[in-house]
C-alpha cells in the first residue's frame, strides 16, 4: 500500500492480481451479476489507487481494507437498486 500511495503503478497491478479474484467473488455474491460486480471492482481499485495513503496497516490487512471498500460500494449499489429514485449515477 505504501508503494501504491507513492504512485507505483506496478504495485497496484500486483495488488490487483493478488486480491481481485477474492474481492470479485464477494462482489458477485453481493450484487448477483458479474458485469455489475466487475464495474464495482474497477471502482474499488481506482479508489485504492487514489486513496492508498488512507490505508492504516495497524487497523487491518490490505485485503481486509480492499474488501471493506468493496462491501461498502456494493452496499451503495444495492441501496440505489432498491430505491432508484435517489440514485445519482
Amino acid at each position, binding site marked *: 500500500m505504501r508503494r501504491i500511495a507513492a504512485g507505483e*503503478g506496478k504495485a*497496484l497491478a500486483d495488488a490487483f492480481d493478488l486480491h481481485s479474484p477474492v474481492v470479485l*467473488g*464477494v462482489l458477485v455474491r453481493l450484487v448477483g451479476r458479474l458485469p455489475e460486480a466487475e464495474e464495482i471492482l*474497477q471502482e474499488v481499485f*481506482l479508489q485504492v489507487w487514489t486513496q492508498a495513503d488512507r490505508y492504516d496497516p495497524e487497523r487491518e490487512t490490505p485485503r*481486509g481494507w480492499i*474488501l471493506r471498500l468493496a462491501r461498502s460500494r456494493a452496499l451503495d449499489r444495492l441501496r440505489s437498486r432498491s430505491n432508484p429514485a435517489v440514485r445519482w449515477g
Partner: protein
Amino acid sequence: MTMSTDHSTRHDELLPAYALGALDGPELREMEAHLAGSCPECERQIPLWQGDVEELAASVPAVAPSPETRGRILRLTGGGASRRPPLRRWLALPAAALLALAVWSGVRQARLGEEVERLRAERGRMARQMEALDRDLGLARAEAQRMAATLAILSTPGAQTIRLAGLGPAPRAVGETFVDPRHGRAVFWAFHLPSPGSGKTYQLWWIDGSGPVSAGTFDVDAQGLGRLEVDRVERPGEIQAWAVTIEPAGGVPQPTGEMVLKG
C-alpha cells in the same frame, strides 16, 4: 411455529443485501417471510455478511476478473508505470478550487463579453436614433423659422397676398406670395409643383412697368412644396404680377423657359 420456505438460489441472492440492511419493499417482505420459519443456511450466512469481511471472503468462491477489467484498471493508473507522488490534499484542494475558478471565470468572461457586445450594439442604435432626432429637430426648427418669417410678413399692416394659378405644364399647382410693402420683403410658397427636371430650376419673377425682375430660384420637395424668401422687393406698389418659370439650374437674368405659375 411458522414453516419456512425451502432455501433456494433466490434466497442466496437476497441474503447479502438483507444481512447488510439494503433490502426493502417486496424483497424485504419475501426474506422476512422466509426467515420467519427456520432456515439453517440463512442463519449460517447472515453472521458472515454482518461480521468480518475477510471471513466472508473465505466462504465464497473466488472469481477471476476478465482481462478487460484488468486492462482498464492498468490504463486508468498509467499502464502499471510509476506516477508522480499524489498531490497532498492540502495542495489538491486549492488546485481543484483554482481549476473551478478558472472554468467559472471563463464562463463569466464569455457572458460578460456577450453583454458588452449587446450594450455596444444598443449604444450604436441609440446613437443612430439621436442623430435622427437631431436631424428632425433641425428640420423642425428651420420650418418654424420659415413659418415665423411668413407670419411676420402676414402680420405687418398693409401686407398683400397674391395668389398664383397653375399653367400649362402644372395645372394643379398653386402659389402664394405674401408681400410686406413697408419693409420690401416677401415670402413665396408653391404647392403641387412637379420636379422641374434634371439641370433645371424654378425661378420666381415679379413684373412691373419695366418688365420681369428675378426674385430668386427655388426647388421643390417630393410633395411639390417650394418656398422662397425675398429680402428685397423693389417698389412693391408698382408690381403688376408674379410668375414662376422653369429655367436652367442657377437661374437666368431674364425669363427664357415655360411659365408654370402666374398671379
